[in-house]
């Protein structure tokens, strides 16, 4: 047992040296966990934020000017003013998600009590923004119009006022969410490739024979690969979480940091085991590369981190929860970071990830001899 641990530790050091030798790889790891995490968190949000809006103002009255001024940050970018033809062309090339058109004589008609119609065109190819964006823009314009019609401050349109209270993320800052999801994506990309490649490399270089004639057992080799690659990724992710996510981006980490590190460690092991398992089914780096890219994309996009898990068809939800540790990690991360949930609430998610790691490791060790011959 002690001998086995010693062997594993030595092999782990060997793996770490192999990682250290590849400079391009080190630069990329650093880039992913710092620059990329920051940039994505800063730029990506499915919440209504900075939507590109254009205004077609055929009224040119104080009222239309007032309504245009009301369309502003944080929900919308400062609207551009366009002619009807320009607006149509811009919608076509995707320059704007929403275009508001004020009809000619709008203010005069309203003052005279005549009905008028304000048009909002929404480009629904921007599926995540068009619906909510149009809803909020309508609310905004309706509120401004009723305030304009009844300046006494009496809001005639609403009989019930509503206060929105968001638990766990009071301002619906999607940065919180995106930065943690981006961290998970980085872990997924790097761990799958690093772990899988460490096996393929041995095969392609023929160094596996050297390892095989040494008095070490397959499981020691496999564990050492996971330990080395996992340690590098975990260290980088904790650094990224504390420095980039918490300190630079300013996400308040709600729950226990140690609990989060524990869950992340389990996730890293599960993904590393998965990477080794996939590598054991391929013979060359070329095959592995072609196999791993689709796996990465499916894991990232169907994790519940990019789009709501509940929106997927049931069969796909079930499938992803069975074969991918990512949905469990997303649920876990949301629980710890936002809801401050404790270990007992999150045990099922950690358990699911651990079980996947176990299955994948069993397959790898079983296939090991066969793979190397």
């Amino acid at each position, binding site marked *: 047992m002690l001998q086995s641990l010693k062997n594993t530790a030595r092999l782990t050091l060997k793996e770490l040296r192999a990682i250290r030798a590849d400079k391009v790889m080190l630069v990329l790891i650093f880039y992913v966990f710092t620059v990329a995490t920051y940039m994505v968190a800063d*730029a990506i949000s499915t919440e209504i934020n900075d939507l590109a809006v254009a205004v077609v103002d055929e009224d040119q009255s104080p009222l239309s000017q007032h309504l245009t001024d009301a369309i502003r940050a944080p929900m919308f970018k400062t609207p551009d003013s366009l002619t009807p033809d320009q607006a149509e062309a811009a919608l076509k090339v995707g320059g704007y998600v929403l275009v508001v058109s004020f009809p000619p004589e709008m203010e005069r008609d309203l003052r005279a009590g005549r009905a008028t119609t304000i048009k909002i065109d929404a480009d629904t190819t921007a599926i995540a923004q068009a619906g909510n964006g149009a*809803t909020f823009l309508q609310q905004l314009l309706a509120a401004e119009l009723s305030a304009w019609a009844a300046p006494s401050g009496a809001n005639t349109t609403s009989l019930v006022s*509503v*206060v929105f209270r968001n638990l*766990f993320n009071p301002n619906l800052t999607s940065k919180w969410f995106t930065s943690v999801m981006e961290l998970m994506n980085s872990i997924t990309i790097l761990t799958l490739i690093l772990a899988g490649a460490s096996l393929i490399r041995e095969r392609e270089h023929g160094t596996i024979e050297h390892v095989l004639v040494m008095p070490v057992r397959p499981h020691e080799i496999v564990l050492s690969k996971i330990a080395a690659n996992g340690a590098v990724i975990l260290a980088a992710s904790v650094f990224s979480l504390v420095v980039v996510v918490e300190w630079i981006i300013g996400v308040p980490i709600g729950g226990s940091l140690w609990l989060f590190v524990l869950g992340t460690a389990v996730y890293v092991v599960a993904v590393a085991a998965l990477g080794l398992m996939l590598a054991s089914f391929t013979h060359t780096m070329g095959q592995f590369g*072609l196999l791993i890219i689709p796996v990465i994309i499916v894991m990232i996009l169907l994790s519940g981190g990019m*789009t709501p898990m509940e*929106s997927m068809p049931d069969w796909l939800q079930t499938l992803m929860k069975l074969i991918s540790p990512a949905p469990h990690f997303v649920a876990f991360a949301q629980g710890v970071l936002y809801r401050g949930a404790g270990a007992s609430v999150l045990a099922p998610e950690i358990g699911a990830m651990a079980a996947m790691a176990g299955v994948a490791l069993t397959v790898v060790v079983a296939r090991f001899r066969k793979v190397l011959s």
Partner: protein
Amino acid sequence: MRDPIRLFFALAGPIILMITVGYGISFDVDELSFAVFDQDQTPESRRLAEQFTAIAQFAETAPVESLDALEARMKAGALTVALEIPEGAGRMLHQGKVPEVSLWVDGSMPFRAETARGYALGALTRFAAILAEESGTATPSPVTLETRFRFNQAFRSANAMLPSVIMLILILIPAVMSAIGVVREVETGTIANFRSTPVRRVEFLLGKQIPYIALSALAFAALFALGQGLFQVPFTGSLGALTALALLYVCATTGLGQLISTFTKTQVSAVFAVAVISIIPTVNFSGLIVPVSSLETAGRLTGLAFPGAWFQTGALGTFLKGFGWADIGTSAAAIAGFAALYLAAAVAILRKQEP
């Protein structure tokens, strides 16, 4: 190319990706778990609650008894939206005062929270209209806000997502194939053959690139057929224009793979570099989730520095916005520019002589 396993992956990978991602990325928010916390228990408060339970996208669960219970259920992830009606709300409505109700939303998934808020606002507006009509104070509003949903009226996620998914697949798979193609020669030493023959660098690179372009074109045909057949995405534009654009695009993406391969020494780092360099901008900054027009400057520029964002505009346009040849001009020119740039850079970096 003599490797049947790789050939299989090169064609099956895109198809499997398309099916899983096409079904999986969806922004249809429904079955939001919803509960009422009614402290008023009057006929009016129940009517207000009914407005919410009638929302098709809300799935009603057992009523909430206390704020602590509400928080506990949200903490466990079992409740997304809750409506809290304070005591006396019904009486205030009778007196013509404006009661204040609270809508509690689990904010840990901002997109869901915001959509839920949109639904709730709609329900409240309807409720106000109903009450106004009953009390006879209804004056038809002089302003109609007419919203027209263009290009994808049914709000089908698949229609909006599939062109972007094609964009994603046709950068990742071609880039990784061609990157490995060149690095493998370096790693296994067969590059010596090229170094010892009078083949020019451009010829060498193009010769390696053409088979991958052909394969990727096949993949595009398969993806297009899937989009039409399985996902029933309408195609309103010019097929010729989209095909031409896709061919240019795979020239650029295989070129990107080759460029990456010229500065990596091992196949591992090549796969790695392709994954990192291409996945992050294409997933995040090329219009897959957020339209490029609504990104902040840094993100937008990152997106536009890759061919993906340009192809996405053209693909989306030919599918849903009736684009013809004239409409894809800018995209095509930009993508062709990328293809030429990648090839030129790869030629410049690839050393004819042993370093």
